[in-house]
């Protein structure tokens, strides 16, 4: 458990667009940042968010569910929520003085009451 890091404001990001973080931190889900060298490891950086659906979206999704296929409202909601989890991961890494997070992984779990928890974690490192 770490002291709470300052939480950045949520960005409205369109699906398919990369997130512009306030602090420039390189992210990757492989062991290194390609073309760079890791100098120091600073422990695990985490970021999580719990989101519940808006009832209107829930009803619309219920209608869309009759024919099957994509539920766009949910796709957007989860994209937004995952970007927020990444923002928090980046803020945590920045608070540790890192300039990159490697081996980023995601976990999703449904918690009670129609809410979903989105969790991102990775190793905060200093790269040169």
């Amino acid at each position, binding site marked *: 458990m770490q002291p709470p890091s300052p939480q950045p404001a949520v960005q409205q990001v369109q*699906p*398919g667009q*990369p997130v512009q973080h306030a602090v420039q931190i*390189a*992210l*990757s*889900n*492989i*062991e290194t*940042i*390609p*073309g760079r060298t890791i100098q120091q490891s600073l422990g695990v950086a985490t970021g999580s968010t719990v989101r519940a659906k808006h*009832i209107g979206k*829930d009803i619309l*999704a*219920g209608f*869309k*569910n*009759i*024919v*099957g*296929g*994509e*539920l*766009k409202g*949910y*796709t957007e909601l*989860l*994209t937004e929520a*995952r970007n927020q989890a990444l923002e928090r991961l980046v803020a945590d890494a920045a608070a540790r003085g890192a300039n990159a997070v490697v081996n*980023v*992984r*995601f*976990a*999703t*779990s*449904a918690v*009670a*009451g*129609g809410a*979903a928890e989105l969790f991102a974690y990775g190793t905060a490192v200093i790269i040169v």
Partner: protein
Amino acid sequence: MAEDTIATLLIWGFILASSLGPFLFSWLVGNWHQKRIIERLLEREAALPRDNLSTLSTTLPGKTIVDSQLLLANVVSAPSRWQLFLAGIKSIFGGNIKHLDMMLDWGRSEALQRLREQASELGYDDVINLRMETSTISMNNGGRQKGGSFEILAYGTGIKYL
């Protein structure tokens, strides 16, 4: 007497329409809609010159890397009410439930295709260390899982070569 018969017919008609209506609609429109989105996805898959996804965590040897970034793509999808109904019957006897395969397969291919398109739009040559994750999304606030909706997340590291 005649009025009674009409009223009874109307009531039964309403009950049947409201209970079977969504299933019939789902059967007719759902199949058409699903075939259409699958065809569209196949067209988009054919439009890209090559598959830039890979599950390896290594880059091509002997090439200089200019840029890399974490890329994400997700899709929330659900089978139709009719498919869920058939699956419910099928699950009594067990075995392969092919009615649920269709949308699950579509969802996974769609998430991968979105990642491919996102990578090529942003100018990345390859996406390495591709990982996929599936999770169920609970739909109503009663806590009961209904609608069979699921989320597919695909992510990897986009690599730009010199």
